[in-house]
């Protein structure tokens, strides 16, 4: 009750209207930029969707099982095959493939943008001081809030969904890239310097390879977060399995909601295990040599 009393006495800071004004200004003045971004993202999503939906589901499942075998042996392979057969059987094949396309698009963009930003943070204390609070902000702000400006800039559809997912999912990649590079032992960095490495040689030959396990953990987190956001993004018209979940929730169809939710879970587990393991065997093989 106390805060109501207080706000009655004090003039309220007009933060809401400031943000609105800024968003308005950006949507009128940066239209060209946003159109360019929208066009690119749309192309990538379409490409992935085409790739995933053009083969027959059986063929897709076989390919997936083979990839899963190399990443995590027969257990993961079997799980992936059965899980995706279930999705097909329940009738969510198309929707799941769209979701997968969205997740991979936002994951890919997050990696392409996030790793260089992470490297920048590791190399420059100034950049790190600016970017770290920004990341805190991005991660703690309720995810729904991103949907609104995304709609303002990109209207309804796939693109704002991907943009919102990127904003929501990029922080782990940036943070863990930064952390991974900082964790490389100072003796090794010193050794790289002592032999006369340039900054780029030190980065690519010593720091990044040694930070890779940490960076991969960040990428894994980013993919999982963007999956969770892509489902939410169906509220603003992004295609995919989220639409089915959303419809079931609004119409109070518990059974159907469970089925759609199950498809999300299967997708999540397969994506998680694949992204965790896909680079590991390569490293193990090298170590065993």
């Amino acid at each position, binding site marked *: 009750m106390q805060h109501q009393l207080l706000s009655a006495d004090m003039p309220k800071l007009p933060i809401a209207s400031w943000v609105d004004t800024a968003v308005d200004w950006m949507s009128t003045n940066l239209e060209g930029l946003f159109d360019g971004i929208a066009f690119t993202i749309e192309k990538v999503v379409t490409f992935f969707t085409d790739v995933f939906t053009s083969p027959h589901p059986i063929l897709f499942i076989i390919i997936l099982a083979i990839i899963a075998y190399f990443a995590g042996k027969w257990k993961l392979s079997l799980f992936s095959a059965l899980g995706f057969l279930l999705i097909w059987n329940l009738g969510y094949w198309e929707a799941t493939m769209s979701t997968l396309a969205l997740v991979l698009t936002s994951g890919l963009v997050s990696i392409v943008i996030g790793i260089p930003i992470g490297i920048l943070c590791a190399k420059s204390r100034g950049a790190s001081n600016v970017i770290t609070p920004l990341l805190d902000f991005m991660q703690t702000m309720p995810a729904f809030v991103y949907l609104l400006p995304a709609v303002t800039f990109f209207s309804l559809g796939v693109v704002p969904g991907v943009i919102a997912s990127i904003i929501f999912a990029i922080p782990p990649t940036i943070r863990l890239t930064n952390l991974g590079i900082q964790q490389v032992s100072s003796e*090794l960095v010193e050794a790289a310097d002592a032999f006369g490495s340039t900054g780029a*040689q030190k980065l690519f030959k010593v720091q990044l390879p040694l930070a890779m396990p940490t960076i991969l953990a960040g990428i894994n987190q980013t993919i999982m977060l963007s999956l969770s956001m892509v489902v939410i993004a169906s509220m603003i018209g992004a295609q995919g399995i989220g639409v089915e979940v959303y419809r079931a929730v609004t119409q109070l169809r518990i059974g159907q909601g469970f089925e759609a939710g199950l498809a999300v879970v299967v997708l999540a587990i397969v994506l998680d295990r694949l992204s965790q393991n896909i680079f590991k065997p390569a490293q193990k093989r090298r170590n065993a040599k």
Partner: protein
Amino acid sequence: MPILSIRNVSKLFGPNAAQGVKLLNQGYNKERLAKEKQITVGVNQVNMDIEQGEIFVIMGLSGSGKSTLVRMFNRLIDPSAGQILVHDKDIMKMNAEQLRDVRRKTISMVFQKFALFPHRSVLDNVEYGLEIQKIDKSKRRAKAMQSLELVGLKGWEDKMPDELSGGMQQRVGLARALANDPEVLLMDEAFSALDPLIRRDMQDELLDLQEKMKKTIIFITHDLDEALRIGDRIALMRDGEVVQIGTPEEILIHPANRYVQRFVEDVDLSKVLTALHVMRRPETITPDRGPRVALELMRERGVSNLFVIDRGKRLLGAITAEDASRAVKEKLSIEDIMISECPTCPPDRVIGEMFELSSTSPLPISVVDEENRLLGVVVRGSLLGAMAGEVENEGVNGNAAPTIVG
């Protein structure tokens, strides 16, 4: 001309480090700087010249500034003041590219905890310095293999560093530094992480390698025994300052001050002093003399035996006074009574390893070079005397040339 000259180099740590250099010149001491300005003096106005081809040991306890000092030689740490001249060129005035060039071609480094790249194979580790110079693959591979062979790791090139023992890892570290064919090798406590037996082997191998390569080696250590064993010259550091620079013998026998004296008083001299330090001038005779001459000579010099050498000073054997007087009576020649199996050792044998030899024979130990030329003799008394810290200057200077009678 020294290959590396350090001129008034200081390193200060703290928020006002730049100001500290001026204050230090104005006569502030370290305690005052620490108290009033929160400045720590890591290295304080160090001067040293390192000559081509020597093993220069920088020795001090932890916190004495030795690691900081050596990191300034290739500017891994920038000094707060002073000059560092490599071949008379001040590396403080170099731009990034020139500095890289020095690090790539002139000064290589070996690290205490090896600092091998764990994601690269042994061969790729050794190649690193050449790879970043963009030397083509087959050439750098050949050089790296050569370098690995030099440290005795041929056949291990495809292993990963964590599959190797500590001693082998440091060999890789050494091979990596040698692959660049640098003029100067900085070895920062390179053997300190190894256990004592391996460490000793590595010291021996480093000395062997040095025989072949004649690099300039700057070796950091906190272990006095190690310093005395491998150093041609030793700089002793304390609290960021150089206390004494000298050969191991100079430091042991003429410590500059009480600190050095206390430092070296526990040294096990039996592991440091060699036959060269304790040997005396031998009393000798050539085999063409008669036993009467030999007896006369022994009486004159007050000794009970003589060493028989040829004209080329090569050791043939020894004769005792008893046998000589028997020879006079029985009209035998020196060659008839000569004991040809007398104990010998090379001049670099440490005295700790000579006691056993000394007890096997009543004769003094003869110190001979590779061509069996007699350099001097060591009697049991001088072994014991040396252990008690008495070393004759004659021996130290190594000019105990034998006198030839006849």
